[in-house]
């Protein structure tokens, strides 16, 4: 799917419109028969919209994915033509940061010279002094305004949201609500009729249309909230909407007279309706895509959801849903225009595509970009100064650095949260070696829970699962080394019955019972006796959860339904997947080899190798999956870690690997583990499968891990504003907690290097760390994998945080306090309206202080420039991202650092 992001990227005018293309009048409008292939048009529009995943698999998505084939500033100009999206922080924000010496004149100067070098800044128009003066001017003005507020404003005006005017600590773009304090977007050429009408009408039609669309989408995609579901849910979105809206009288009553008749008369497919409506508006062909984008961006959240349904859900019945959504949105606009007599004079819109109008970027925007770059440069310098590159020197060639065998090797996810625990583990115990690797451990699995026929993909969404792993009860351990007997065999349990069957039976009855109970609770007549007879029970639950005696721990609890306490630790990836009848051993070895080679673990194997996935622990948190492992599709990394360990412990697999040049010593044992990112505890799975000979190693490791846990907590505690490290434990179980952990809010850099380079630097949880040894990667294939998969994922995560911060109104999800789960798949802010797609404010800031500093990802790669350049040249996606400055790459070569500049220009950095 990431491929098709590119193929039809040429939107209206973007590449075709060379130079000025001021467009001529309405006589260019063509009849319905001549309208350019509607499918192409819709494909153009669709690829500029980023998807959003349902809450249960909530993963980070780059909201700018659709426009990142343009340069950073061009994308901004492009978005501004048809929306009020923001892509840069305001000057006031940088003024604050500069006061705190986050960056200084030197960095601003570096940024300016870099921009001159890359021709972003045309000439000597801008100097450091200009930048500082503008920034400080904004700061003073901001201060004056705030002080004025303090004296003058009423209670109501003062409290314009959590982060807005009253909040002197973190200036943000007016992100509290999209329509507050009317944004001044002078580049906006295309607007919806609803927006135009909202400015003069008592009813806010723009909000009304979003509410209506939200209402219909929620009813269509509802995953079980409404007891009385629509009978048309299985139809494509457009058909569903047409049937529903043709009967719905809400619009009619609110003043959009006879809208239901309008809907009934529309063509019966989304494509035909869009063609029909565009003709009705007399939209000239070259503007059609922009008009549709304007419509889509006015309900960005639902567009993202429809995009997910169309492109990612894999359901053929839903592949036209995005077109359906566009048709719906357009229908409201056309109806509003006709009802209130609005007409667009398309000929007045002289649209010069942003891609060729760099010069038109205003001065303030440039200064904000300079400041963004200055802050990035400041961090980059800090990081590269802390790296220990002497290890790269050729004196330590592989043949003469026969390293002592480490006591334990631990592989963590590249996730920035792993950095702290890795550092503390290693500092405390030098014989322990850690690795960074994408948290699905190269296991492209679909994990199928006990008793289910379908499962969840537990791997990055860029990849397709190729192995179905069933969850099941593993046999109790039969330690191969000391030869002790089977402790408990499956058959000996439960009077000969298969324990899995008994789990399924129990689970069926538990869950059917829950469903029935829920039905009782929400039924028309039943809800009254339900409340009266069970009320006291809820008084008890209220007390218990308020005092945190009990908690409904989100994910784990459901997984263990119907599993006896004695079996719980044995419930995991089942061994049957590895049966050679299903899966030839050569193919098993392929997966194992791929993993070890990409990880760079091919020579030295410790006695104990822990593959440590990660998961978060929160209560009452609909966004919980967002804190889990993104590399596992927003789930816990547990199945992948356990499965990988199981695979690598197979003697048959090891034999094949030996023939392929990877010799795993017989005394090397792989173990799956889990890092709880909320409490920083590390636990190991399947411990009864660890041979007795290794029990001391495990005991030692767990002992050291406990110490690392305590130290990591102590390091994190001040960041969450508490002096007590135990407060972190409370957060994991507190149902009222909105900041259980900071997630990936620290992310800013992606370091691809041997651990020796970073081992002695404290990176403050700011960096994704991927292990990489260039000397073992002769054909750069590992580098290519890293740069096209984990690095892109890291970039997505980075951009999710970036976009949610610079424009929370469009790309974030507002305050958690008004979150309202819709249809069990998404979040609304308040009563209804647009689907919320990004990060909530509470995940970005606390008490007005941003935890996340919006910066584009800086990828620091310990590899020669040539190798990196080859990979970039091969992948247009990387060219777009790097030439467009959506992220930065820095190469470490022979003890020197080189910054990638557009078009393969490498600039040496002075340390």
């Amino acid at each position, binding site marked *: 799917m990431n491929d098709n992001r590119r193929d039809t990227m040429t939107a209206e005018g973007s590449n075709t419109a060379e130079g000025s293309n001021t467009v001529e009048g309405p006589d260019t409008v063509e009849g319905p028969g001549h309208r350019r292939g509607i499918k192409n048009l819709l494909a153009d529009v669709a690829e500029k919209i980023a998807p959003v995943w349902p809450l249960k698999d909530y993963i980070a998505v780059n909201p700018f994915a659709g426009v990142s084939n343009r340069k950073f500033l061009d994308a901004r100009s492009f978005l501004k033509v048809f929306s009020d999206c923001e892509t840069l922080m305001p000057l006031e924000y940088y003024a604050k940061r500069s006061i705190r010496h986050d960056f200084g004149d030197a960095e601003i100067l570096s940024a300016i010279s870099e921009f001159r070098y890359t021709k972003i800044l045309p000439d000597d128009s801008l100097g450091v002094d200009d930048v500082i003066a503008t920034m400080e001017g904004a700061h003073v003005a901001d201060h004056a305004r705030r002080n004025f507020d303090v004296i003058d404003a009423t209670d109501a005006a*003062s*409290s314009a*949201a959590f982060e807005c005017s009253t909040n002197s600590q973190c200036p943000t773009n007016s992100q509290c*609500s999209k329509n507050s304090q*009317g944004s001044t977007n002078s580049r*906006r050429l295309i*607007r919806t009729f609803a927006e*135009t009408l909202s*400015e003069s009408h*008592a009813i*806010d039609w723009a*909000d009304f249309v979003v509410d209506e669309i939200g209402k219909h989408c929620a*009813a269509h995609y509802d995953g079980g*909230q*409404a*007891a*009385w579901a629509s*009978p*048309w849910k299985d139809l494509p979105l457009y058909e569903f909407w047409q049937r529903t809206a043709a*009967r*719905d009288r*809400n619009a009619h*009553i609110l003043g959009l007279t006879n809208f239901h008749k309008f809907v009934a008369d529309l063509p019966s497919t989304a494509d035909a309706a869009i063609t029909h409506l565009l003709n009705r508006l007399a939209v000239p062909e070259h503007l059609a895509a922009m008009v549709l984008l304007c419509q889509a961006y006015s309900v960005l959240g639902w567009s993202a959801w429809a995009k997910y349904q169309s492109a990612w859900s894999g359901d053929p019945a839903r592949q036209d849903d995005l077109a359906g959504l566009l048709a719906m949105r357009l229908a409201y606009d056309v109806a509003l225009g006709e009802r209130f007599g609005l007409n667009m*004079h398309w000929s*007045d819109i002289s649209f010069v595509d942003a891609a060729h109008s760099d010069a038109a970027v205003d001065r303030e925007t440039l200064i904000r970009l300079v400041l963004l770059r200055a802050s990035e440069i400041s961090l980059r310098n800090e990081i590269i100064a802390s790296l220990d590159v002497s290890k790269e020197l050729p004196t330590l060639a592989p043949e003469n650095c026969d390293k002592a065998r480490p006591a334990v090797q631990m592989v963590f996810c590249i996730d920035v949260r792993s950095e702290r625990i890795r550092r503390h583990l290693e500092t405390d115990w030098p014989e322990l070696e850690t690795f960074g690797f994408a948290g699905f451990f190269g296991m492209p699995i679909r994990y199928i829970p006990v008793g289910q026929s379908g499962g969840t993909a537990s791997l990055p969404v860029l990849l397709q699962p190729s192995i179905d792993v069933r969850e099941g009860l593993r046999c109790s351990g039969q330690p191969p080394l000391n030869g002790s007997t089977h402790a408990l065999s499956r058959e000996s349990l439960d009077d000969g019955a298969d324990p899995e*069957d*008994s789990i*399924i039976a129990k689970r069926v*009855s538990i869950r*059917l019972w829950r469903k*029935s109970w829920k039905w*009782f609770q*929400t*039924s028309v007549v*039943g*809800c*009254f006796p339900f*409340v*009266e007879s*069970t*009320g006291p029970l*809820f008084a008890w*639950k*209220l007390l218990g959860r*308020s005092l945190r005696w009990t908690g*409904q721990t989100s*994910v784990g*609890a*459901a997984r263990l339904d119907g599993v006896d306490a004695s079996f719980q630790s044995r419930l995991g990836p089942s061994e049957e997947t590895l049966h050679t009848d299903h899966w030839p051993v050569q193919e098993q070895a392929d997966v194992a080899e791929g993993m070890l080679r990409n990880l760079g673990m091919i020579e030295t194997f410790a006695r104990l190798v822990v593959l440590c996935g990660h998961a978060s622990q929160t209560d009452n948190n609909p966004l*919980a999956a967002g804190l889990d492992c993104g590399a596992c599709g927003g789930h816990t990394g547990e199945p992948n870690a356990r499965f990988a360990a199981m695979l690598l412990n197979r003697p048959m697999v090891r034999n094949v690997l030996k023939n392929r040049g990877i010799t795993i010593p017989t005394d090397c044992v792989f173990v799956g583990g889990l890092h709880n990112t909320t409490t920083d505890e590390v636990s190991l799975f399947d411990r009864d499968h660890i041979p007795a000979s290794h029990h001391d190693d495990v005991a030692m490791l767990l002992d050291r891990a406990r110490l690392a846990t305590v130290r990591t907590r102590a390091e994190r505690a001040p960041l969450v504003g508490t002096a007590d490290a135990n407060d972190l434990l409370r957060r994991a179980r507190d149902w*009222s*907690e909105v*900041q259980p952990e900071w997630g990936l809010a620290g992310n800013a850099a992606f370091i691809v290097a041997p651990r020796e380079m970073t081992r002695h630097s404290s990176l403050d949880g700011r960096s994704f760390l991927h292990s990489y040894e260039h000397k073992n990667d002769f054909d750069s294939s590992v580098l290519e994998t890293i740069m096209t998969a984990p690095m892109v994922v890291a970039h997505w995560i980075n951009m999710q945080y970036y976009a949610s911060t610079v424009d929370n109104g469009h790309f974030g999800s507002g*305050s958690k*306090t008004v*979150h*309202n789960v*819709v249809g069990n798949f998404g979040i609304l802010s*308040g009563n209804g309206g647009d689907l919320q797609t990004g990060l909530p404010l509470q995940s970005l800031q606390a008490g*007005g202080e941003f935890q996340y500093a919006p910066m584009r990802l800086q990828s620091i790669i310990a590899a020669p420039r040539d190798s990196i350049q080859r990979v970039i040249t091969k992948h247009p996606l990387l060219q777009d991202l790097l030439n467009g400055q959506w992220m930065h790459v820095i190469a470490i070569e022979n003890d020197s650092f080189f910054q990638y500049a557009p078009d393969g220009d490498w600039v040496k950095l002075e340390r």
Partner: protein
Amino acid sequence: MGLESGWASTLVACPAILALLLFATGVAAFPGRPQSERTGTALTRRIGWVTRLTACQAVAALVSLTVWAWVHFGRLLGGTSLPKGDVFVEVVVAEQSLLLYDGVSALMLALVSSIGWVICRFSVRYLHGESGQARYFRWTAITIAAVSWMVIAGNLALFVACWVMTSIGLHHLLLHYPERPAARRAAWTIFIISRFGDVALVTASVVLLQQFGTLDFREMFTLVAAWNADTVPLAANVSAGLLIVGAVTKSAQFPLHTWLPLTMETPTPVSALMHAGIVNAGGYLVIRASPLLADAPESLAVLAIFGAMTLLYAAVVMTTQTSVKKRLAYSTIAQMGFMMLQCGMGAFSAAMLHILAHSAYKAHAFLGSGDAVSDAARMVVPDCGRATESRVGRLAAPARVLVTAIVLVAAMAGAFVLLGIDIASKPGGGLLGSVVVLGLGFWNLHTATRFGPVTWMQTMTLSVALCLVYAASFAVVDAAVVDGVGTLRTTTVSFVLSALILFAIIVGGVLQVTFSQALPTPWLHEFRIHAGNGFYVESLIRRLATPLHRDRASSKPSLAAARNDIRNER
């Protein structure tokens, strides 16, 4: 009997003083524009005070309730030699009854204080880091204090004053995010409705003062008790009607409910406070003033009709809502309708039980509304079919219905007999008992047809247990409040009314059974679409009110206006 010794008045004085302190803290600790202590340790400390105060108040209220219950039930069960009559405490200031602590207010105070503490404790972390947290705690403290004083008010004047204060507090809480248009719409709608309610209550007070020369609840009750059915003056009917109007405005009764589903624009704990505390105030007013209303059966009959309409309307709308909080909001409206139905039928004890149970349920449901996603995961039934229950039972459908009906009716009747509740003597008892049996019956029917016989048997067993629990809870609450509430004479009208309402409720249940089976009935689909919109009540009111009130403060000349030629063709 009045407990008049000094120690007795501490029962009510303690929590009352704590509530007063809470009020004072709310006003003083969070000054209007708390710029300096918006965040940071000073604010944290002050929030800590408020939360601890609510905890103290909750403990005090629960201790008082325990002591009161010990005395009351001790007398009731004949364990002590105390004289017959109601056990109550009055705090009299300047010959006016300031506070009244009897079964009704004891239970309610314990409820309000506990919910207040839960809300505050929840909000410490939930609103952490918000610039509005200080303001939020200010108005939460003031509101909780106002509700607390309202429930223990000894006279109608104080009651009305606290009632108005509560409404003002709520208004500020609803405007926690004043920049959100829907928040403003909801807040101002309830603000206007509340002022009508205030007028009704003040007028009622004036009429009552004219009539009795006092507004003390107990004095008025004593005077009313002396009347007999033929000597009820017209003014009594007028005041009863006005009190009921006041109650209806507070408790989101159809068609004045439209603001309630719009209040999701304010932090979750405010919803919890509102749904578990404030909207009950209407019901509480009716229960508190029930001795004055018992002689106006016509007004109560109207209330019952409104309640029944509300419950049917909202219960149906509830089933079509797709977001957690909206579903809960319509559920509250339905439950408020049920409460008002109980009040209207004269079943004041049952209404009291309902308030207590519903508050606990709804507070938990709102505060825990973030569980929705994990709850959905907990209901995914394994589908691989290795061990699913066989869905077809041995009994045919009519037989299942018959068995269910017999078991449930027997269980309910048995429970009443066992606990010595004479259902015939309780006003509305027949109707309410039937609703319980019906609700359980529809549930059993659902399980019997959908799931296997095992689940069905489990359901039936639990249903019998729930009948017992319900009857027992009712017996306890009834014994606690029966002396403090009025007794409605059962009339022919009420029988007819019961029958009609029961019929309507059965129709509702049958409707659900019908749509659960997804029969292709076109009119039903259309009905569902209208129900999903709450039958357009909110839109109609909004449309009617729009010329009066602009969503936008001003219309700014905009770029779009300049670029797009806007021609109004009319």
